[in-house]
């Protein structure tokens, strides 16, 4: 048993003249939750669909659980679970029946009720699929992905469209999977999701990985402190400030004590009120936005 679940070297995928994936290297260890982050159109889904065996790579090396997914081997499919972004199920079967149907495709499936419990659909066990809410259907998607007791689970944007409570539940569920020793590869465009769940993250932008590592290393990339405030019209602060999307001015600084001193003493001397003044370190969201911004 190797401790590397997924190994990717120099992966490229082109559609005509469009380079969707431009040389990606990736190593995902067995038992890790790995998050692939990036804005829409960055190439996340293309990468994950190559790893699942839905797409053929243009060049590079891909090994998933020791298989090349392109060969679509049965032995490979028996060990993976796939939760795609938009996939339907038969609306007239019940939750338990649907899981039972998908279980039958695998050699060593998990018991129906165990899977239902992992995703928290016990109360909807005998409800027909068409009567489930969007969030419940998404949980059923995950349940189907788990039915065959896979070693590796692909989750493509598992919480898109969830309300905050449903997202927390989904996170608990994914932590639950990790405690079962599963390797999980998830894509998301929510930074907090990656931060809360992942052992490792990679940020992909325009078909290339711009940063990869533990969620903590992202923080280390940007230690500047943000000083944000609203200044009245006409007032020009003594320091260089940029406008943020929420109408504030922002100063990035490596020396927040001095910056604050200069800013506040200017404000006091000129009798300027600094509304909504706040001082914070860079959030992962800030770093993510900077990394994925178009220059």
């Amino acid at each position, binding site marked *: 048993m190797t401790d590397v679940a997924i190994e990717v070297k120099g992966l490229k995928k082109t559609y005509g003249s469009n380079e969707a994936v431009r040389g990606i290297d990736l190593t995902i260890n067995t038992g890790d939750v790995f998050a692939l982050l990036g804005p829409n159109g960055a190439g996340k889904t293309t990468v994950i669909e190559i790893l699942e*065996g*839905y797409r053929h790579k243009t060049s590079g090396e891909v090994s998933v659980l020791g298989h090349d997914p392109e060969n679509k081997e049965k032995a490979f499919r028996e060990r993976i679970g796939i939760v*795609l972004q938009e996939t*339907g199920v038969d609306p007239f079967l019940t939750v338990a029946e649907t899981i039972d*149907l998908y279980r*039958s495709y695998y050699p060593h499936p998990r018991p129906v009720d165990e899977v239902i419990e992992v995703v928290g659909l016990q109360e909807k066990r005998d409800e027909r699929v068409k009567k489930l809410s969007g969030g419940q259907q998404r949980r059923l998607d995950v349940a189907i992905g788990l039915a*065959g007791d896979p070693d590796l689970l692909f989750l493509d944007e598992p919480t898109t469209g969830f309300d905050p409570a449903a997202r927390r539940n989904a996170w608990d569920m994914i932590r639950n999977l990790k405690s079962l020793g599963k390797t999980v590869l998830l894509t998301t465009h929510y930074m907090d999701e990656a931060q809360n769940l992942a052992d490792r993250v990679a940020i992909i932008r325009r078909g290339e990985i711009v940063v990869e590592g533990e969620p903590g290393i992202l923080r280390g990339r940007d230690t500047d402190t943000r000083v944000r405030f609203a200044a009245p019209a006409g007032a020009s602060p003594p320091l260089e400030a940029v406008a943020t999307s929420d109408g504030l001015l922002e100063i990035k600084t490596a020396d927040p004590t001095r910056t604050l001193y200069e800013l506040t003493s200017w404000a006091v001397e000129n009798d300027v009120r600094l509304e909504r003044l706040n001082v914070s370190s860079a959030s992962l969201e800030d770093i993510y936005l900077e990394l994925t911004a178009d220059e």
Partner: protein
Amino acid sequence: MSDLGLLFHQFRFENRSFWRNPAAAFFTIFFPLMFLVIFNVVFGNEDIASPTGETFSASNFFVPAILAFSVITATYTNVAMSMTFKRDDGQLKRVRGTPMPAWVYLGGRISHAVAMAFMLSVITIAFGAAFYGTEIPTTTLPALLVILVVGSGAFAALGLAITGFIPNADAAPAVVNFSILPLLFLSDVFIKVEDPPVWMDWVGKIFPVKHISLALQTVFNPFEPGSGFEWDHIGAVALWGVIGVAIAVRFFTWEPRK
């Protein structure tokens, strides 16, 4: 589970799902019966005398036409529409990501369509026998079974094949009806055209609809002696089944088209 066990399992779930959509199940069954009633009203169900002086109900000539129609609705139309819907809905893509072999999934779907074709045939014949004096085939029963198996299998394969040319589920009814309704009219299923133009003759000869209809006519024709096997017609339908499989292999896709 073995592949065959899996196919049976798949069939059972298809069947369960089918009957849980009562509106769809109801209309699938009553559509052919409705035509049987209409034909009898429109064309009359007078007795027809044979050269030997025996008389037979005219329904013996309607029923095989309705059977041809039933087989085509239950297989071609049904498979084409439902598979396009499942493709666009992502159900096929999901299935493709599991270890189940493709042929098992398609086999489950097609065997259910074939079973529905048989069920509709039994209902249609029973209805005709009960209300319109249709003679239930006896000496030609083996021929009837062969035609139903070959016909429903072939039209199910053609249903799979046509999905390759349906861009999305919304377009499915239009494409399917456009491909089959004219053929039903040009193949003497709904109306018998006396002295058809040459091109219409050829349409009937080339496409499978008239062949299955004529093969079934022979089975129910009380004036026709023998076992009822019209191998040229049955063979033509089977050949279309092979063509259907070949087209499906080339053009059928598992992923939604966007």
